[in-house]
């Protein structure tokens, strides 16, 4: 069985994507809607805090809830890490994804000033990928062992690690 296509929701998401892209042309590079009705905004890394505050505070887009903050490692690209923010709007019952890019050495602005929930998520991304977050209140390791060296979720980190246990 195949999920039935919901044309109405797709049109609404397309319209909202165009609305946001018209308001913030300085930072939004692309806006796309997947076939499963998921809206994604592709951002320049300087624009994380403006875009996230806009999505949280604007009346037509009250995305008050940060559901997830992850990173994707694609080693063949120039900017290998892709940071993904998943937001949920309780007023309008809709979700949106915001994606940015960075390489290993460039810091990214922390989203903690916009969403308090980003605190531990950013610690996890720092620990697992090595992406540094500027203005984070307390950036330290959260999942790896105390003297652990390396960033496990990177694609060039071997499956059973470098140290024998």
């Amino acid at each position, binding site marked *: 069985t195949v999920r039935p296509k919901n044309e109405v929701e797709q049109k609404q998401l397309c319209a909202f994507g165009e609305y946001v892209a018209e308001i913030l042309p300085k930072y939004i590079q*692309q806006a796309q809607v997947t076939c499963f009705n998921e809206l994604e905004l592709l951002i320049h890394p300087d624009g994380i805090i403006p875009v996230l505050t806009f999505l949280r505070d604007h*009346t037509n887009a009250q995305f008050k809830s940060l559901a997830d903050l992850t990173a994707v490692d694609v080693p063949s690209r120039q900017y290998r890490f892709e940071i993904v923010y998943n937001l949920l709007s309780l007023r309008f019952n809709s979700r949106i994804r915001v994606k940015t890019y960075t390489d290993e050495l460039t810091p990214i602005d922390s989203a903690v000033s916009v969403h308090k929930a980003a605190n531990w998520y950013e610690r996890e991304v720092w620990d697992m990928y090595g992406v540094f977050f500027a203005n984070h209140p307390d950036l330290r390791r959260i999942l790896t062992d105390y003297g652990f060296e390396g960033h496990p979720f990177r694609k060039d980190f071997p499956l059973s690690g470098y140290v024998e246990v």
Partner: protein
Amino acid sequence: LLQTTGLVGLAVAENPHERLRMLYTKILGVLQNIPKDAAYRKYTEQIVNERFNLVQTETDVQKLQDKLNSGQIEEVIVQAENELSLARKMMQWKPWEPLVEEPPSDQWRWPI
């Protein structure tokens, strides 16, 4: 209604019309400072004027909540305060300018 909002941390607002009127005039004042052709100014002015008119024509709190269709009056007040702080920050960030930097051509290609 006049005893509690039912929401944790939000007290019942006495005189919500006055507060909303003040907030909306402040937002419109801040919006005057950004260029007239910016999409943000256009859409926000549209929303704020619409809500402003509804607040001025409707004096009954319950009916105003139904017309605005956006949760309780106290939530509308909180949303207006958020919109005001957003407008002030937008003045500094200026997001209506053209794109800061184009991404590398293979950045957003999927599958790789």
